[in-house]
C-alpha cells in the first residue's frame, strides 16, 4: 500500500509519470521508500527548499503510522 500511495502522490506532481519508480527496502535503520523520477522532474519532487519532499515524507509517515524514510534518488549523480 505504501509503495502504491507514494507512487500515486509523486506521479501527480511530475511531467513524466511513466518514469516514476518507487521501491520499498528493509534496512537496518528501518523501512525505506526509494523514489526514482526522470532527471528533469527531480526539482519538482524535491521542491523549493525541499518543501515537496518534506510534504511527501509527512504524508507517508502518516499512512505508515510509524516513521519511514523516503529518499529521492538522484540517478544522474549516481551514474556520473
Amino acid at each position, binding site marked *: 500500500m505504501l509503495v502504491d500511495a507514494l507512487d500515486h502522490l509523486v506521479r501527480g*506532481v511530475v511531467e513524466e509519470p511513466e518514469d516514476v519508480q518507487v521501491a520499498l527496502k528493509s534496512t537496518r535503520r528501518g523501512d525505506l521508500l526509494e523514489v526514482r523520477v526522470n532527471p528533469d522532474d527531480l526539482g519538482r519532487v524535491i521542491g523549493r527548499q525541499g518543501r515537496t519532499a518534506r510534504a511527501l515524507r509527512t504524508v507517508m509517515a502518516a499512512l505508515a503510522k510509524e516513521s519511514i524514510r523516503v529518499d529521492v534518488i538522484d540517478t544522474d549523480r549516481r551514474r556520473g
Partner: protein
Amino acid sequence: MTAAENFEVPDLENQVDSEQEVLDEGDVAADYLEELLDIADLDGDIDIEIRGGRTYISIVTDEAGTDLSGLVGKDGEVLDALQELTRLAVLNATGERSRLVLDIAGYRSDRADQLRTIADEAIQKARETGEEVHLEPMSAYERKLVHDVIADAGLHSESEGESGRRHIVVSTLDN
C-alpha cells in the same frame, strides 16, 4: 430572481472561462485525493465548493466511518502537506497555480471557529488596555482569517516575526 440581478450584464465569455478553470481545479484535486484514499483503503467523501473564486475541497466521513484524524496530524501538519501536494498536482495538470484549500474531517472549520474566538479576545483586550496584543504563531492562511476579523472590528493588525514565529499583533488604530 430579483430585479437587480436582471440588470447585471457580466462579461459572459470571461466568466465561463474562469468558471471552467475553477471546476477543472476541483476535479483534478478530487481525483488526486480520491485515488489516494482508495489506495490507503480509507473511506471518505470528497466535496468541492467554490466561494469567492477559491476552491475548497473537503474530505468527510459519516460518524461511523473511517477515522481520518491520521490525515490531519498534529496541528494539521499532514493536512497541510496533503494540501501542498494537491496544489502541485493541480499546477501540473492545468498549468495554473492553485490556491485551493483542503479540509479533512472538519479540522479547518473547527480551527476557524477557534481563531475567531482568539481574535475576539484580542480585540477586547486591545480596547481595554490600549496596548498591543501579540497572538500565537499561525500559518499564513490562519493569519488571513484573523486579520479579517480584526479589520471588521475596526482595529489594526500586523504580522511580525519570521517563518515559524510569524504572528499577529493587534492594536487600536490611534496607537
